[in-house]
């Protein structure tokens, strides 16, 4: 629910200016309407800001001719969009059945321990990591797949966790 939502920094700096706006506008040509640019625009926001705030939701709505409520309904449908700030390195671990069969939950425990996040969904005190469990990452033959930011790492076992984390200061 809206309770506990996080407020953006003030004053709000728009995302879609200059080259970012130009990039979005170039993509308009590939779709018959602006609404279709909603997912791409949200990705552009998240790539630049790390998360999607109420203010950026309003901005995206204005840029695409939608309402903030509409955009919010879409944002909250898709689990990869962050509606609150996350750690510098966002770690997603697949724990769906195929990976679960192969020890994914041990990998999660190792990640929680070595990042200092403590629990799933939490951000480490130093702001470096957030660890979440996610449903099927689509690499079931390479259990356990882990995403750190946009990096996709296959076959992560608890033993490999310290070395893996060391690559993300």
């Amino acid at each position: 629910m809206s309770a506990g939502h996080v407020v953006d920094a003030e004053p709000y700096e728009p995302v879609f200016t200059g080259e970012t706006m130009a990039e979005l506008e170039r993509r308009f040509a590939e779709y018959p309407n602006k609404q279709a640019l909603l997912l791409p625009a949200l990705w552009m926001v998240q790539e630049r800001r790390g998360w999607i705030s109420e203010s950026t939701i309003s901005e995206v709505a204005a840029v695409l001719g939608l309402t903030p409520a509409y955009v919010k309904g879409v944002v909250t449908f898709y689990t990869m969009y962050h509606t609150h700030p996350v750690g510098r390195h966002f770690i997603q671990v697949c724990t769906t059945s195929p990976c679960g069969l192969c020890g994914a939950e041990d990998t999660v425990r190792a990640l929680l321990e070595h990042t200092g996040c403590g629990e799933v969904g939490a951000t480490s005190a130093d702001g470096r990591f957030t660890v979440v469990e996610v449903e099927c990452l689509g690499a079931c033959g390479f259990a356990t797949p882990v995403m750190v930011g946009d990096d996709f790492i296959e076959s992560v076992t608890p033993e490999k966790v310290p070395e893996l984390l060391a690559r993300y200061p």
Partner: protein
Amino acid sequence: MTQELVTVTIEGAQVQVPKGTTIIEAAKQAGILVPHYCYHPSLPAPAVCRMCLVEVEKAPKLLPACVTAVAEGQVVHVSSERAKKARTGVLEFLLINHPLDCPICDQSGECELQDYTFQEGRAATRYRDYPKRYNPVEDFGPDILYVTNRCILCTRCVRFMDDVAKSAVLNVSERGDRAFIGIAEEQLLDHPWSGNVVDLCPVGSLISKDFLHKARAWELDKTASICTGCSQGCNITIETRDDAVVRLKPRPNMDVNRHFMCDTGRLDYRWMNRGDRIEAPLLRQGTKAVATDWDTALDRLGQLTGGSGRAVILASGRASVESLGLVRAMLDGFDVTAAVRVPTGPEAPLAGIPNLALRSERAPNVHGAERLGYTRDWAGALNAAGTADLVVVLDASLDAEEEQRLQEVKGALVVLGTVVADFHHRAELVLPVTTMAEENGVYVNRDGRAQRYMQARNQAGMARPSWWIAGEVLAGPGPDADAPATAAQAFEDVGRRYPAFADLSHQSLGWVGQTLRETAGTAR
């Protein structure tokens, strides 16, 4: 234009319906209600509640009646074992997280979840081992609360705002059983037509703050009426509890307002409950006004209207066709200037429905008045009133300056009024009349459609409809069988006097009204 018809059998009843009709609508024509939540005839059908699943012979799966078009020879079973099991299943799923707070829920008594559960739900829950989902109540807008826990996610409200109001301020947020109806921080549910989401909500999830805990549904008396908010003429129901109006609801009329009404009209009912009413006829004697009986009052009115010269009528745009017509007829001996008051305000269309808006003419019967010889030239009539021999004020609301001017008129002043006002002390005669909520009558909307409204509450004190007063005067002094005794008779009397209303009757207007033959003379 001939439409291709198909014949289907629903619950053993054969019906012929136009090709393309959905099963749910065809069933309605066969007199069968297919239980449903998300479907609404004025909204696009998403087929998500899955309550209207019916068994269609030869179809392997149950089909949603709300989006499945009928086919020739189709045989539909609404109450087969399979269909009933599916509905019982849906009801159980809807109830696992629904609070059992009916005793404090405004929807109780008119709740479709209650009704269908009573009909076909399980007697006891099988969801015993877990707490119900809990979320706090959200404030959605000036008049609307969202009780998240009661929501069954039918999305009628979201679709109304998206597709009918064309103002997508509501959404479905999140996924799965975490989903709820959401709103953006900065955009409230304050659209001029937003109150309709409360009507559309089949459960007590979206509720009106104005009606909050005011009455239980089963305590309400409901009366068919017409909204007085503007010249659109939305069909409404006036709902009273113990003779007090507690809310207004839209009443379906596909040609006028479909299933909707605006918030301005919806919330404009408190005047119907005003207590500062003129309770008895007041007759001027010297410097004093004394209460009198109707016989005396009508005799005096007969004297005043029996003269000649110039007369002015200043009428409310809420006055009925019957009252406007007979009051004007009562002054036939005079050279009459009749004007109707038309307050104005901004127009607020309901974008998704053609020809439906809160109109800038904020009076329900301007167009009826015009057909009865009243003009909108209020200022002209007020000027004329200054020197006229007789001025009749027919329940018009006046500002302070206008009241002052009426105190200075040269001729006789007669007031047919509902509430007490200062300028009444100048009047020869003050007669208590009913509000529209206390009488039957007819209004003509901006499209020339004559529509009836019914008496929703008792008249205050000795108040009588204005048409009754005028009818008695027209019939002459003494007991008179010719004077109209009912609004229906008064309406027919008006029909004999004014060609625009010839050959019509309350009965012929029915419940949905009728467009008048000629609309010439209607100022647009």
